[in-house]
């Protein structure tokens, strides 16, 4: 099954790097969309179906933690696995993200293999084959 992924980061450069890394994982990608903050991501998620979100934590307007909290309030969005890709690796932020349902965290800098590994850990095998 092909993956539909939303990449959320305020840096256009990092969105490009993450999307390129996704392409290098060997996973089949049906659709990859981008958002520059949590608020834009929520709007896109309301009108599109995704089976994975890769999100930064520190972003203007609505950060990754606030986005996770908003997703938890929505019965459909709370089912979408979210992996945080961030420089923000402090214990408190990691715990906040985990409490709000984040399935994993990849610290920047990263190599594509780390993203593939984390996706494999948090998605059903049926989605990866």
């Amino acid at each position: 099954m092909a993956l539909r992924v939303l990449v959320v980061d305020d840096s256009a450069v990092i969105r490009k790097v993450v999307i390129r890394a996704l392409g290098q994982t060997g996973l089949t990608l049906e659709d990859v969309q981008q958002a520059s903050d949590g608020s834009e991501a929520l709007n896109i998620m309301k009108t599109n179906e995704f089976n994975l979100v890769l999100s930064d934590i520190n972003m203007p307007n609505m950060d990754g933690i606030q986005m996770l909290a908003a997703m938890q309030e929505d019965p459909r969005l709370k089912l979408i696995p979210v992996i945080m890709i961030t420089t923000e690796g402090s214990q408190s932020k990691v715990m906040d993200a985990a409490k709000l349902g984040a399935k994993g965290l990849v610290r920047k800098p990263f190599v594509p293999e780390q993203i593939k590994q984390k996706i494999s850990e948090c998605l059903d095998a049926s989605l990866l084959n």
Partner: protein
Amino acid sequence: MQEIIAIEAIQAATVRVFATMLEKELLCEAPRVEPQKRVAAEGVIAQISVVGSSSITCLVCCSAELACTIAAILLMQECAGVDEEVLDAMAEIANMILGNVKTDLDAHLGEVSLSIPTVTHGQDFMVHSHSKQWMLLPFQMDGLTLVIKVCFEPPYQPRRPRAERKAIASDPPAVGMPS
């Protein structure tokens, strides 16, 4: 926090970011002190700070040529001149370096926040700090030099409201204390 711990953490994080994101080996050169508040600058400078119970400001400085090289490797595309993508790439490099330092030194730094990076591109300008000196951390990449200028500042102390300051100033000295 001892400054030497922070210096080593910044060097280690910089080498790690370049090795992982750019697959480039950075050579660390010996740090040196710039004993003045103002330092001359040119090229591309990405400024980022951690602020709170500790305060560290880093300027990631390099030539326009090196900034374009870094962005080209990161984006896997040609970067002929300093444009928005090059500035964004330098901001992200600075963000990753100090973000990693913040994580690595979580226990030493206490409650701190990471600022949003600001990038400046130009020639012949000065950077001024409230601190008395800058610590310069030079690195070499493919014969080009990248310097991280680090400034350790005392934690921010908000000023008391004027009325409060006046009241404190007019308080009689405590009994038994020297006036």
